[in-house]
Every structure is written in C-alpha cells, then in structure tokens.
C-alpha cells in the first residue's frame, strides 16, 4: 500500500516535471521570434548572428532538458 502511494507520487511528479518543457518551448520560441524580427529588419546583419541564435537556444533549451531528466529519474530511478 505504502509503495503504491510512493509510486503514484513519483508518476505525478514526473508529469508535473514535464511542465518545465513548456517553459523551455516558450523560451526557444521567444528567442527565434526575436531573431527573426531582427533579421527581417536588417537582413545583412542576420547571418553574423546565427551563432548567437544557437547559443541562446542551447542555453534556454537546457532547462527543458533538465526537467525532462527529472521526469525520467522519477519514472525509472526512484
């Protein structure tokens, strides 16, 4: 009985941890959207900033991956 509750809590926690991915999605979308609006205003400067775009995506995406990792740990390790 007690193990069931722990299991249930782990699954609920895994589901809740997935909300972090939504945050990462919002962050990546904001970065790319702003990049695109900047690039359309000044297309000649756009190609020089693609590296910064990917760095920004990587940084904000990392936190989504962290939440995914927490979900996986709750599902399979706890």
């Amino acid at each position, binding site marked *: 009985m007690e193990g069931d509750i722990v299991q249930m809590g782990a699954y609920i926690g895994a589901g809740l941890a997935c909300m972090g991915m939504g945050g990462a999605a919002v962050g990546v979308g904001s970065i790319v959207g702003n990049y695109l609006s900047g690039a359309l205003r000044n297309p000649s400067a756009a190609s020089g900033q693609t*590296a910064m775009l*990917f*760095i920004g*995506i*990587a*940084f904000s*995406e*990392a936190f989504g*991956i*962290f939440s*995914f*990792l927490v979900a*996986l740990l709750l599902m*399979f390790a706890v």
Partner: protein
Amino acid sequence: MAAEEQSEGLQFHPMEQFTLEPLFGDGPIHWYTPTNATLWMGIAILVIVLLLVIGTRRRAIVPNRTQSIGELAYGFIYTMVEDVAGKEGVKYFPYIMTLFMFIVTANFLGLIPLSFSTTSHIAVTVVMALLVFVTVTLIGFFKHGIGFLKLFWVSSAPLALRPVLAVIELISYFVRPVSHSIRLAGNVMAGHAVIEVFATFGAILAIAPLSLIGIVAMFGMDVLVAFVQAYVFTILTCVYLKDALHPAH
C-alpha cells in the same frame, strides 16, 4: 517494445534501448569490458577516419563527393572557431574539430535502427564536457595567471554589484560542465525515447497510422537535433575557449 506487451495493458520500456550489454558473453560489466557502446564508438571513429583519410587521399582540384564532405566539415568548423574564439583560438582547432566530428558521427550512427547511440549516455558526454572544462580552465590560468579570475569580476558593473555578480559568475562557471554534458545526452536520449514511445502506440490498431506518422516526424526532428546538438556543443566549447583567452569583460 511492442512485442513485449502483456495481457494486462501495454508494457513499454522506452529506455531499454540504452542498456549497456557486454559484446562477448554476459558477465558483469567492468571498466575494461567491451560493450555495445565501445563497439559503436569504435565504428564512429572508423567512419571519421574513412571519411577524412580516404576522402582527402586523392586531393583532387575538383573534389568528389567524399572529399567535398570532408572539406565542408573542415571549413565549417574552422570558420566557427575563427569567428567565435578569435585568431588565437585557431591553435586549438584540431581539438574542436575532433569533438565535432565524433559527436556528429555518433549522433547520426545512433539514428540507424537497431544501433546504439553512444552520445545518449551521460557517462560519454560528461567525459568530453569535463575535458573541455579542465582544458579551458588550464589554458586560462597558463595564459593570464591570476588575471584569469577577472572573468568573475565584471568591471563594467557598478562596484557595489560586483561581489554579487562574482558569486553568480562563479556558480555559472562551475555549472558549465553539467549543462554542457546533460544538454547533449538529454537531447539525444529524449529523441530516441520519444520515437520508442510512438512505436509502442503502433500496437493499438486504431492509432497505428497516427503513430507511424509520429515516428517519421520525430525521426526527421531527430536528424535535425543530431546535427544541431553537435553544433551547439562545439560552439559552446568555442565560447568557453574565448572566455579563457580573453577573460576581461
């Protein structure tokens, strides 16, 4: 694993594809045991060597396909190192090229069905990330001595804020290898696990066509992710290298 479904509901194990198995026999795994990870890392290195050595053996003026791929990869990384880390960073180009080629090849090999993706293991990526971290820190201290610590002392900020910023910068500096490694492993692992989950849905007849579409779409996404994550790992290495070469803000 749809084949393993039992009578009471679906049993799926999307993480089963990442299990390490010894190549010969099935004894316990020690640090020297050759496993499937060892095999696929070896294949990745073999593929890189074949691409770069065989590709550039003839050195034709008009390159053939293999030579074009090799030249493309070389030029791509060279410009990246030069743009991000500056002229001084070009000295470390061979190391960054090696990292990129290994990660991108291992990622793409992992996408072959029934293969094993070595970069989905944090044990593999953390070694690369820690090597980058230690190398970059050593370069910084050898080049600038104690002046490397100016990296944490943001001189453009107001004086009262600087100690606070120094703490934040210090924490973010030491989190680097963690995020650097987990980003790569997590992305690759997530992509493969999602494909596996969609494959499990294929066992239900009503949604099997949908799951097929899902698998194809996720696979396309994974091909993109395989390249982008290798690119991101490499460009972050360049950024860290730039910080070590020019620590002052």
